[in-house]
C-alpha cells in the first residue's frame, strides 16, 4: 500500500468551449480555480456511494461544478419517503431506479457531465473494480457494512474518501486520505446490530442532508484542485439545533488493522459477518 497525497491525478482536460467559459465564468474568475482548474474538474472522476440524502446535494453541486465524470452506485428505487431530503429525485420518479433519476437530473443540470450509473449493490466482489477508475469517492451510504466496505476498498486502492453521516438534527463530515487515517481508526468496530438506530428508525431533518452533502461536494472539489486544507484528521460536527460547528481530532491509529503500522487486513473481507448485518449501499 503506497501512501498518496490523496489528490486527484491532476489531469487537465481540453481547452474550454465558449459555452463552457460562460457556464463556469464565476469559477474561472476565482484565481484559485481559473481556466486550468476548471479543465481539471472537467477531467475529474468522482464516485458517489448512494443516491440518497447526502448523494443528492453532492451530485447536484459536483455536476453543476463541471466534474466531468460522476459515477453513482445505488440499487434502490425512488420511494415517496425519500423525497423530503433526497432532492435529486422528483415525485415523477417514484418507483424508478434512483440511478436513472440521477442520470436524467444531472444531464439537465449540466450536459458536460458523463454520468456512469451502477444500479447494483456494492459488494466485496465488485467494489475494487467499481472504485478503481475514480479520483475521489464520496460516501453517502446508510449502514455500517457499506461504510467499512467503502473505507477498506478506498484505502486498498489509495483513493481519497469524503465521508459524511447524518443523525436526526446532527451531521458529521471528514476526509480520509490513504495513509493518514481511515474509518477504522475513527471507529475500530461497528456497533452490534440494532444498537444504533438508522435514519429510517430515528429520523433526520431533510435539510441537514443539504448541509453535509454540500460540505462533501466542497471537500471533493478542494481535493480535485488541491485547494485549501481538507478535513483530514479532523471530524467536523454540525448540530443544527444549536447551529454550531465544532471539530474533534481523528488521528491515524498506528494499531489500525487496515492502515496501521502492522496491518492484518490486505483485502476486502466479509462485511456482513464483520458487522452482523447485511451490506446495503442505499443513501
Amino acid at each position, binding site marked *: 500500500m503506497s501512501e498518496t497525497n490523496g489528490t486527484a491525478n491532476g489531469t487537465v482536460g481540453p481547452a474550454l468551449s465558449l459555452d463552457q467559459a460562460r457556464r463556469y465564468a464565476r469559477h474561472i474568475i476565482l484565481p484559485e480555480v481559473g481556466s486550468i482548474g476548471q479543465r481539471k474538474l472537467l477531467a475529474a472522476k468522482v464516485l458517489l456511494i448512494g443516491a440518497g440524502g447526502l448523494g443528492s446535494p453532492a451530485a447536484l453541486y459536483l455536476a453543476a461544478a463541471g466534474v466531468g465524470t460522476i459515477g453513482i452506485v445505488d440499487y434502490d428505487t425512488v420511494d415517496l419517503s425519500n423525497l423530503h431530503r433526497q432532492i435529486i429525485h422528483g415525485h415523477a420518479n417514484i418507483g424508478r431506479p434512483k440511478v436513472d433519476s440521477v442520470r436524467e437530473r444531472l444531464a439537465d443540470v449540466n450536459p458536460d457531465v458523463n454520468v456512469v450509473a451502477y444500479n447494483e449493490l456494492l459488494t466485496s466482489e465488485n467494489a475494487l473494480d467499481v472504485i478503481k477508475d475514480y479520483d475521489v469517492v464520496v460516501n453517502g451510504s446508510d449502514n455500517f457494512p457499506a461504510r467499512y466496505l467503502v473505507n477498506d476498498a478506498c484505502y486498498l486502492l489509495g483513493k481519497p474518501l469524503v465521508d459524511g*453521516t*447524518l*443523525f436526526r438534527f446532527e451531521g458529521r463530515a471528514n476526509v480520509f486520505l490513504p495513509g493518514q487515517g481511515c474509518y477504522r481508526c475513527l471507529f475500530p468496530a461497528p456497533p452490534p446490530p440494532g*444498537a444504533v438506530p438508522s435514519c429510517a428508525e430515528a429520523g433526520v431533518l431533510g435539510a441537514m442532508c443539504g448541509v453535509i452533502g454540500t460540505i462533501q461536494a466542497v471537500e471533493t472539489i478542494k481535493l480535485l484542485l488541491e485547494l485549501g486544507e481538507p478535513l483530514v484528521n479532523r471530524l467536523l*460536527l454540525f448540530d443544527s439545533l444549536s447551529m454550531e460547528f465544532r471539530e474533534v481530532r481523528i488521528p491515524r491509529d498506528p494499531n489500525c488493522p487496515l492502515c496501521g503500522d502492522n496491518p492484518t487486513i490486505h483485502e476486502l473481507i466479509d462485511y456482513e459477518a464483520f458487522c452482523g448485518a447485511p451490506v446495503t449501499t442505499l443513501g
Partner: protein
Amino acid sequence: MANVRVPAMLRPAVGGERSVAADGRTLRELIDNVDQRHPGFAGQLLDPDGQQRSFVNIYVNDEDVRYLGGLETPVAEGDVISILPAVAGG
C-alpha cells in the same frame, strides 16, 4: 466541574439534556458521576466489563481519549467532554 456534551442518540439517558455538568478527576470518575444522577448513562459508553465501547468515541477537549489515557484520562475544571457514537445515516 467539566461539561459533558451529549449527542442526540444518548440524550434519553440524561433526561433529554444537551449537556450535563459533572465532577471527577478522571474520565471514569466523571462518567460514574453522571451515572449516579442518570442511571444507565455509563452503560451507553462502557461495556459490562467497564471498558470503553469500540463504537463510542469520547473526546476530552477535542482529543480522542483512546490516544490519551483512556478512561483514566485526567479531567480538569472547565474541560469539555464530547461523546460520539458511530452513526451510519446518509
